């Protein structure tokens, strides 16, 4: 077990964004985090990333309470662009190299080339698609133990989507754990191992995809339609 969340709760302006949520992640698996907008997926990821402090409950990373040093092994990519306005693609690479030991600059540059981006491009002036590619390249180039991608398939065209999925599948070996949130359930159906369904901040179901298909012949989409 790499990560365990116990009874996490977070309230924003009187409304519970995450409510008494417990789940655990095992090493070397790909997890899906599913739910509508505002259901608490992002808040959960940000808590694991150490950006948001839970009001109640605790997060254990490899059995110890989450602390700032763990950020060295946990990568988080937010839905929105978050790089500094002045940053070019090359600055983003340098920043990650400066702060993350697990960052592979060479691999980052490969990905940048693969995605058709250039080192001199300014992050601020990029289109949604390019910006999404830059984020994913920087985040995946961190060979982090735990990699959380919030809507990695948003805003990119079909070809880029397939490329991103291929990258994730290439990188997700038995040493790395992935947690993905997405609205495009069809896209992740074939490779996600376990899905968590979140509604109004609560975990309403954890589903082992292959086991469910074997037992009831229901797909991820079927279950999603049923319970959400």
């Amino acid at each position, binding site marked *: 077990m790499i990560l365990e969340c116990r009874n996490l709760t977070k309230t*924003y302006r009187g409304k519970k964004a995450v409510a008494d949520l417990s789940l655990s992640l095992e090493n070397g698996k790909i997890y899906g985090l599913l739910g509508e907008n505002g259901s608490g997926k992002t808040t959960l990821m*940000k808590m694991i990333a150490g*950006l948001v402090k839970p009001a109640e409950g605790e997060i254990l990373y490899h059995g110890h309470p989450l602390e700032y040093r763990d950020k060295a092994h946990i990568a*988080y990519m*937010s839905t*929105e662009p978050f790089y*500094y306005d002045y940053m070019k693609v090359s600055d983003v690479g340098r920043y990650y190299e400066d702060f993350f030991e697990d960052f592979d600059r060479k691999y980052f540059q490969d990905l940048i080339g693969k995605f058709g981006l250039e080192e001199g491009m300014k992050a601020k002036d990029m289109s949604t698609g390019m910006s999404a590619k830059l984020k994913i390249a920087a985040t995946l180039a961190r060979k982090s133990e735990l990699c959380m991608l919030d809507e990695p398939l948003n805003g990119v065209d079909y070809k880029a989507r397939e490329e991103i999925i291929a990258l994730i599948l290439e990188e997700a070996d038995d040493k790395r754990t992935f947690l993905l949130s997405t609205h495009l359930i069809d896209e992740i159906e074939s490779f996600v191992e376990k899905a968590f369904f979140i509604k109004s901040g609560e975990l309403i179901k954890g589903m082992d995809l292959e086991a469910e298909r074997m037992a009831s012949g229901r797909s991820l989409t079927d279950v999603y339609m049923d319970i959400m």
Partner: protein
Amino acid sequence: MGKLIKYEWRKQRTTRVVILISLLVGLLAFLWGMLFKNDVFAAMVLLVMFSVSLLVLLYTGIESILIFNRDLRTKQSYMLWMVPRSVWEIVGAKFISAILQMLFSFAVFFAAGCLCGGALLYYSDGMKSVIEMAQIIVKNFFEEGNLIDILWFVATFVIAWIEVIMIGFLAVILSRTVLLHSKFAGLFSLILFFVINWIVERGYSLIHAIPLFKDAGNLGIWNIWDCVYYLLISAILFLATGWLADRKLSV
């Protein structure tokens, strides 16, 4: 820590460039006035440069508070808070780069002042008087011990200003933590800024009312206890800011 400071320092680069360019323009204008014996113009330029420099020094401090606020409110905050560094290092780096920025502004304005002074002397009395003046200043500062006075003055000023920035940091972090759910967090933090400032000044007057401190610390015209007091307050403010960020901050 060095890397954090590097990126914090980078965030205020535009301001430094603006300062340098406007100083250069000012200096050139002043020299032009000197060259063509347009004394009124040159004096005007000096006056403008002096008042602008005061404003800029003020702004430099405020800017670091504004950047801190931006680093807590916008998506860009992830950049800062996703790095595997402790809150103390992050806030510390911000603090140090705020001081560096201020020292930078101070230094360039001081250099510009010296240049203007030198140029003034040169054009009125020639090179000889510039050298004489420099000798007088050196003699005055280094041989008669006035340098220490000046340094104390600068130190007190810098420390007092640091303390004001620290109050700003604390006010910002308060607005993003304990006051987060209030509608008027921004307004509250502004009020808090003045309230904390007022409290600190009250403390200052109280200490000065104690005869022991009043007399014991006097070193020429500057009181060593002023520095100690402001440093102590800054340390407390820093601890409070870091503690709040560590316990309560969500970006």
